[in-house]
């Protein structure tokens, strides 16, 4: 049975220190509210998994919550660097970060394998690329039919995957519209799936070809309007591109970053309070 609980309770129950967690959503529907709750509950030693770490993991890395990062592109989209990620990799601040680095195609194959409970993903990948020499997880196999050499990546099976979605119904079915990235694969690859949603409705219409995660794969649903900000929820609110630009300044300096986290994340009790504190700061 899918549980309907507040986000803080879902995180407290299901995400222990040291867990491997995937907060997916490719530019769209990034579960920022859940990321902030992990910071509020001061989770430690996390293995963070995400194709594009984005601002959400820049924040978790910057507060020292992560020991390891599995990723495939670590920039601020359209803006430049993730300064907290860079500080951790280049200078070990606030603590060193192990990297398990892939390409998008490799990570997508790893999620697909995880969702299917296969031991590894296979692809024509990493050709002419130096990552296999640096990452022992990237290996190769000879095709038993054609003898072609193919790249392999171990399946990704996060302890917990967290998504944000537009709607859930009372049974716990989850409906997602717009860009889905690897949300479906990350959801089905996980041992436990937590979802924050903009809205809970009595019943969802038949999804046809739309993306629906059926209730029996969904562990917890938490009602969390605005939970993807500063990313976006198609049909609800737009991506706050201006905030992504401003993050470049906020995150560049350790002191300014820590002050922003203290004031807006640690200094608030939930996502509504977080958004309120930003609104007050803007006026």
């Amino acid at each position, binding site marked *: 049975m899918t549980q309907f609980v507040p986000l803080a309770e879902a995180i407290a129950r299901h995400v222990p220190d040291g867990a491997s967690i995937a907060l997916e959503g*490719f*530019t*769209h529907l990034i579960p920022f509210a859940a990321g902030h709750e992990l910071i509020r509950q001061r989770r430690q030693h996390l293995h963070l998994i995400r*194709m*594009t770490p984005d601002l959400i993991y820049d924040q978790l890395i910057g507060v020292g919550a992560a020991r390891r990062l599995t990723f*495939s*592109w*670590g*920039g601020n*989209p*359209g*803006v430049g660097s*993730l300064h907290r*990620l*860079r500080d951790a*990799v*280049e200078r070990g601040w606030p603590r060193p970060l192990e990297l398990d*680095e*892939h*390409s*998008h*195609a490799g990570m*997508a*194959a790893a*999620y*697909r394998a995880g969702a299917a409970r296969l031991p590894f993903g296979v*692809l*024509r*990948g*990493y*050709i*002419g*690329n*130096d*990552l296999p020499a*640096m990452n022992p997880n990237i290996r190769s196999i000879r095709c038993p039919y054609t003898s*072609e050499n193919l790249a392999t990546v171990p399946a990704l099976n996060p302890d917990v995957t967290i998504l944000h979605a537009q709607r859930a119904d009372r049974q716990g079915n989850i409906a997602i519209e*717009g*860009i*889905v*990235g*690897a949300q*479906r*694969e990350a959801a089905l690859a996980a041992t436990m799936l937590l979802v924050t949603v903009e809205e809970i409705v009595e019943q969802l219409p038949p999804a046809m070809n739309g993306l629906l995660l059926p209730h029996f794969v969904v562990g917890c649903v938490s009602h969390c*309007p*605005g939970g993807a*900000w500063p990313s*976006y929820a*198609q049909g*609800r*609110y*737009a*991506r706050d*591109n*201006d905030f*992504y630009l401003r993050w470049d300044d906020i995150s560049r300096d350790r002191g300014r970053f820590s002050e922003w986290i203290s004031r807006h994340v640690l200094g608030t009790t939930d996502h*509504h309070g977080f*958004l*309120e504190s930003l*609104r007050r700061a803007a006026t």
Partner: protein
Amino acid sequence: MNDYSRDEMMTIAAARMLWDGCVCFVGIGLPSAACNLARLTHAPRLVLIYESGTIGAQPTVLPLSIGDGELAETAACVVPLPEIFSDYLQAGRIDVGFLGAAQIDRHGNLNSTVIGPYSSPRTRLPGAGGAPEIAAHARQTFVVMKASPRSFVTALDFRTSGGYFPGRSDSGARGAGPTVVVTDVGILKPLAGDGELVLTATYPGIPAAEARAAIGWPLALAGEVETIAAPTALELETLRAVAARTAAAHCEPIKLPI
């Protein structure tokens, strides 16, 4: 039309290389501007695929990120990202893939991972993203980069994406590799054989000597170095109109979702 910037010339030169009906794997920034310029001028049936899963996107403003809502709203369809990489790119259905990077070498290999050693980098760059498999599997790739001796180097710090590495022909890469490198001082193409990049064209008012000075290896010239035609009024007007719409859209304040 004499009054145009080098960035505009570079974008327009890249746009002209795309043909109507071409299926294009697009990146953010200049490639996105070039592809949309081509779509709005000589190639209305150009198919834009962004790695976020949007197929046939027709954005009216250029996206800041690879997954802006504008792309989904104007696309023919949106598919999961693993499908884009395995069933479209790896399956050989992309005509042209655009790539950029922090460093390129004379064989068209690219680095977007680190400056300095991998385990203790001086500068940690964003990393591979879709690039290694675009470089391998798009039928051909167009590289777009501003020229400077810091970025056009004799040896890469890290090879993220394979050009003609050496050894491309035996590597399992299905695509032809980088067939053109568009810079702000001219156009480089690979010589048959080992794939060394040579200067094949310059822009109006930019002598070959200036182009050579911007490249970190001793750049050879093709037998005949063409001069690319200056931008037309239509190209400049279209490009600037897109830029103006984009700037206006991106500075509209977003209301916090509370």
